[in-house]
């Protein structure tokens, strides 16, 4: 099998409601979908969401990385006909074609979109689900809610809405001020017994972070994600040594090298995995495995604004990893005005979602929606 043509869609899908954290406020998603064709009627899709404040990527760097590097890397490939004896081997093989571009700047979202599109096409051409590569160890995936950075009243209402939808677990975005009131409001909205974590998106320094954690621990907060900016590695180590709450790393955890350093330095308790941030399925899986081997807990995050494609990839990987403490994503049209999938991938009551069993990622993409929200469509031809 080889790819005969490709299209890169740069998308801007409006949100049904805006989402805010300490680093950004979004009212629409900026995402990219790569569409591949194999010339025998199989069409596959992959998605990546560049987020400057996480990986330094923008839609522009993503476009360049795909047009100049990743597409040329896969355009001429002859992919093996017989696959799926060993799922891991297939993932490794596909991943091996997707080396990082020269120059040191990593493009995880671009790489992720490419990897997913290759796998989706390859699997569809054989009528197989991604679940045949990533064997699920559980039959459903249960998602948690996310509460955007708001005042206490608005946070209460978001929490109350989550409770209405049967969700008893949420991560609350916080900033340097007002977090105690926020947590009290969220607790009131979610109801007794709810599990609440916070995400600071690197808004604190070592001193203020410690003060925040000491204030939140008695309020029954379960974990604190990314208290410090990504680059404050030694401060994170110091903070972790004294912290009264488990620390999850998110922005600090992009590459396997980051993961190794975090383990070596004993800087955290939890890895927050995200497929687009970590550069695709296999790289995310490797980070997860390292985390588990090192006795860390795993959370599974999403990109705010991701479509059904990344949600589906997340569902497969989460079901494959199993026993994750906290899973986010699959918000579908709760967040996006319109999602790309025919039939929905969004979770239902209680945050529960079944496994996706269709070929490839298990998403039937609505091309009309893809075209409707494309701000740019780039045709790629084999070089």
């Amino acid at each position, binding site marked *: 099998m080889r790819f005969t043509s490709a299209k890169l869609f740069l998308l801007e899908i409006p949100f049904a409601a805006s989402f805010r954290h300490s680093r950004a406020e979004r009212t629409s998603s900026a995402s990219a979908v790569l569409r591949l064709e194999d010339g025998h009627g199989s069409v596959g899709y992959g998605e990546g969401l560049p987020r400057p404040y996480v990986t330094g990527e923008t839609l522009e760097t993503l476009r360049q990385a795909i047009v100049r590097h990743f597409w040329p890397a896969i355009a001429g490939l002859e992919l093996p006909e017989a696959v799926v004896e060993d799922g891991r081997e297939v993932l490794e093989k596909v991943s091996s074609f997707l080396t990082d571009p020269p120059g040191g700047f990593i493009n995880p979202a671009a790489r992720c979109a490419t990897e997913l599109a290759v796998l989706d096409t390859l699997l569809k051409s054989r009528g197989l689900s991604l679940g045949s590569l990533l064997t699920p160890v559980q039959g459903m995936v249960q998602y948690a809610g996310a509460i955007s950075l708001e005042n206490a009243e608005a946070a209460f209402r978001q929490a109350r809405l989550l409770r*209405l939808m049967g969700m008893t677990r949420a991560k609350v975005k916080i900033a340097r001020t007002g977090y105690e009131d926020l947590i009290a409001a969220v607790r009131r909205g979610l109801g007794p017994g709810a599990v609440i974590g916070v995400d600071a998106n690197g808004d604190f320094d070592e001193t203020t972070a410690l003060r925040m954690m000491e204030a939140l621990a008695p309020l029954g907060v379960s974990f604190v994600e990314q208290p410090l900016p990504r680059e404050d590695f030694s401060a994170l180590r110091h903070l972790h040594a004294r912290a009264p709450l488990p620390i999850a790393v998110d922005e600090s955890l992009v590459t396997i090298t980051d993961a190794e350093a975090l383990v070596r330095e004993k800087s955290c308790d939890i890895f927050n995995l995200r497929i687009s941030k970590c550069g695709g399925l296999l790289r995310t899986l490797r980070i997860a495995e390292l985390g588990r081997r090192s006795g860390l807990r795993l959370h599974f995050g999403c990109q705010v604004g991701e479509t059904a494609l990344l949600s589906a990839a997340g569902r497969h990987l989460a079901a494959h990893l199993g026993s994750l403490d906290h899973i986010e994503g699959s918000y579908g049209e709760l967040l996006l*005005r319109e999602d790309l999938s025919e039939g929905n991938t969004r979770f*239902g*009551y209680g945050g529960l979602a079944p496994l996706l069993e269709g070929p490839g990622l298990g998403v039937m993409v609505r091309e009309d929606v893809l075209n409707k929200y494309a701000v740019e469509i780039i045709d790629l031809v084999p070089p």
Partner: protein
Amino acid sequence: MCNPPCCKIQEIYAWLNLTFFLSGLMAYPETMSARIVVEKRFGEQLEGLLRSPRWRALESGQAGRGLYLAFVENLCAAHLCSPQILAFLYALAPPSSAAKLRENMLEEMGLDQEGIAHPSLLLDLARACGLGEEGCARVQKRARGDLSRMCMEALLLRTLKELGFAALVEVSAFEWMLSRTATTIAGFLRVSLGLNPKALLWFHHHAEVDVRHAAEALENIEDYAASYGFSKDEIGAMLDFVFRENIFIRRYLDFPSGDSSQP
């Protein structure tokens, strides 16, 4: 120097301002009835619609023909299956409001004394706009598609009780909004697409008849909430759920941005 639709809009604004002023004075006391809370939310939604650039373009006569046609298609698709939705609401209605919902449903189906099925009025409107049989088929397909999507999506709510409440609130919001804007809409469609009164009969029904329906609808919501035992907080959560975005803009004014909103 302003044409009738524009005057009508100013009236609506004045009315909205008064409502918000009054509700502001009351500032959500514990005792505030469900009806007032609900109507306040309807007002916020309507205000969002009236402020949106596309509505303003339509209402001022500045929009291109393509935008008017897209608007008509959206409106038809949004309301074509309302008999089915009303039947669902009738099925869940508590005894105290079942009779009103039944009457509303029969009227929508053309089974009352008037004998005019509202969906057929919508298709007449689509034809009069020159959308043709092809356009009518497209609208019907969309309306049915929306229904079947609704049936196949994973439910976000716990029981039919909540789902019914969400549907009742949404349907009522449209009746309420139409009772205040139908004449305006008919006005700008008449001028911009050169339609005759017969083509605009659907709006006549929803302007006149729905003043009564809209008032009844608020009672129905209160009835429903009381009969199924929704707490004040649950009502608030349900309203946040239904109105997590502007449902009027979503149903009426969402079309591909390529559509000509220019004159």
